[in-house]
């Protein structure tokens, strides 16, 4: 399969169109939605760059917390939720809060890197 332009380049081109052409010609609600659309593409670009490494770290932590050799992150998170709901893991469990914090920081670095709570968490 060809990769020229790459998915990343195409998204960058559309984002540039939204930012430099569409947004300045739109008004009111449409202009607002164009900005939301541009931000959504920025999220996709960050995700493409950051998700593989972040998810690998998340998988390792989840396997250690749950003493599991499952490799699917979705299945591991489902299992973690069940353990918490059953009261087998809580805030006092060693490593749980640290894991949740690391995972949420990685998630927010993709979703909303400018959010104030991320600065608080980094302190």
């Amino acid at each position, binding site marked *: 399969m060809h990769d020229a332009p790459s998915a990343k380049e195409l998204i960058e081109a559309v984002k540039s169109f939204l930012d430099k052409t569409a947004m300045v010609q739109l008004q009111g*609600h449409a202009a*607002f*939605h164009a900005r*939301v*659309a541009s*931000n*959504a593409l920025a*999220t996709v670009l960050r995700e493409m760059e950051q998700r593989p490494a972040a998810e690998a770290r998340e998988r390792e932590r989840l396997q250690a917390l749950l003493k599991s050799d499952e490799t699917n992150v979705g299945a591991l*998170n*489902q299992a*973690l*939720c069940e353990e*918490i*709901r059953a*009261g087998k893991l*809580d*805030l006092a469990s060693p490593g*749980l*809060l640290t894991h*949740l*914090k690391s*995972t*949420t*920081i990685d*998630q*927010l670095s*993709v*979703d*909303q890197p400018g*959010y*104030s*709570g*991320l*600065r*608080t*968490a980094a302190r």
Partner: protein
Amino acid sequence: MARPFFRVIVAKMGTANDIEKALTEWAREHYGAPAAIAGLRRLSGGASQETWAFEVNANEKSEPLILRRAPGGVSAPRGSEAVTLATEAALLAATDKAGVRVPGVRHVSAPGSLLGEAFIMKRIDGETLGRKILRDAEFETARSRLTQHCGEALAGIHSVPLENLPELPTSLGRNQIDKYEAVYREFGLPRPVFEVAFAWLKANEPEPAKPVLVHGDFRLGNLIVDANGLGAVLDWELAHIGDPREDIAWLCVNSWRFGQTENRVGGFGDLGDLLDAYAAAGGARYRPADIDWWEIMGSLKWGVMCMTMYGAFKTGADPSVERAAIGRRVSENEIDLINLFEGLERHA
């Protein structure tokens, strides 16, 4: 949540011409025959209620007013717990009587009348955008008074005798955990931080307070602020009978501090100061630690609400990019919850 059903009704019946005709008739009755309506314009595109601004020109004066109206003038059974317009008008009257800064109600219009189910209230000048209130120089004096004014307003709302109120839903802490947990479980999207929050809330639930009138959405965005401070408390749609700490904590939820996280009260104030103003104005005496449980409840609640808004995209009810993108804001509430849990560890 947007529902196509309402849009159909609005398209059929909600024309500005019909409203202007009905308002003119009302104005002539109340202000005398030469009264005229000017500048009628729709302010919000909300699916649940219409909000219109207009002026009545009569007796060589111009009075700025607001019309709140059911979509198309006809209320339909709604899935949410939002109160009816008649209830909203009654709440404004009851809190006005208790000395809370609210817009005075001029007229309540019944379903089936020319105007439809609606009420007319005074239009209060000022700003509602949180970022502007927290940042702009013109609100510097206002910011220095806002903590005091909010403490007084909350104490006033919570002091309204329940027997003076229309029928309202009752929702205390446990009820809210159950309600939002049910919504969260229905999505089938597991989020471990939310699981920890639900479990922690259940394990640490405080003794319920004596139930009072709770505004339900008391925060920047729903408060009109002018150069002198709080001008009026708006948006009573989520009012209910509940725990007073819910209102105090909701004003503290980080989502409404608009980046000014160091000021726990709405990005502008100190919680100790707010609680002092609240107690001095006749409210119960609370310590900052009494608010923690409800702030965690508030952050979790807003996270579940963001999931619900994304759900409207997922089901196709609202295909806008805005509804899709809000699903990537749920992690904001997750980090707020984690910061709150770490704060509890430090206090312990």
